[in-house]
């Protein structure tokens, strides 16, 4: 190849690089952010239960793998995912805890009365401060915490058959034996 041909190819190469880079961004949901807490210990919390006001903290939940589902009665997508949460909890694979995020106790209870309560227990985070510790930026969000209190996965947005099947179940299988007690 002579020099002129190589020179002529440079703009084409630059163009193709640009196309490649732009293509990478196509179809990507920019609202989905990776969690900074994956494979890190769940932040410490001590919150009252929506049911009886008793304080639930990390230690109370240690030793067993659980799902922490961030929801609120003001959140329309929480209603959408509610049947999935209910179905998942019904299968009794791991307990599902709710984190009632920036909600009013009365409306939260009314919501549960209307749609049913799938949760083993519900933590009340009315100020959203534990939400900040967990890096929550919307509802619904769901965290998988293993028996050692390590966050193993986070789902932003609704639970659905796909992410339960492809993301949650394999990880539950993988980490179910990490529980020491």
């Amino acid at each position: 190849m002579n020099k002129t041909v190589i020179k002529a190819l440079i703009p084409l190469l630059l163009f193709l690089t640009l196309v490649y880079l732009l293509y990478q961004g196509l179809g990507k949901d920019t609202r989905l952010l990776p969690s900074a807490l994956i494979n890190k210990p769940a932040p410490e919390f001590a919150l009252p239960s929506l049911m009886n006001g008793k304080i639930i903290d990390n230690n109370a939940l240690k030793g067993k793998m659980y799902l922490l589902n961030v929801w609120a009665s003001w959140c329309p997508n929480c209603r959408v995912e509610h049947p999935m949460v209910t179905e998942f909890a019904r299968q009794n694979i791991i307990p599902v805890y709710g984190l009632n995020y920036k909600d009013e106790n009365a409306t939260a209870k009314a919501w549960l009365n209307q749609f049913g309560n799938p949760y083993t227990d519900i933590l009340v985070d009315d100020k959203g401060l534990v939400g900040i510790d967990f890096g929550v930026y919307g509802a619904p969000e769901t965290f998988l915490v293993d028996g050692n209190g390590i966050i193993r996965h986070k789902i932003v947005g609704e639970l659905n058959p796909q992410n339960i099947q492809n993301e949650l179940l394999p990880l539950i299988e993988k980490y179910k034996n990490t529980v020491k007690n």
Partner: protein
Amino acid sequence: MTRVQNKTMKKIIITLILIANTVFAIDIHEFKTEQQRLDYQQLTEELRCLVCQNQNIADSDAGLAKDLRNEVAKMVQQDMSQSEITDYLVERYGDFVRYNPPMRADTIVLWAMPLLVLLIAGFIVIRTIKKNTTSTHTNESDS
């Protein structure tokens, strides 16, 4: 309009502007020192709102942005440094929360690219100029 009326109008307008300013400052935080106030201002302008991603938390009306502003104010009042506060939020929300990305092995391309492009462009410009001047010289000597 007479001069006097004009003056009163001005006064009214200025008052309205001042009132508007206080109305828009929704959350009021008390800081002990001017430095704390500046820290708070700088931080909230450099932290990205995660809900409306193209706004910083100072500008955003989202509920989460307000919570984060409160958290930042609280930490500033506790005399935490700017980098401590940024680290606190990066721990929770990842680097995405920063508008000012850190220089690290995986972000080096981001930082080096502008310099690289500048160098290449400069190289091309200088070469072209040199070429042109030499060709003019040759032309002159030819004639």
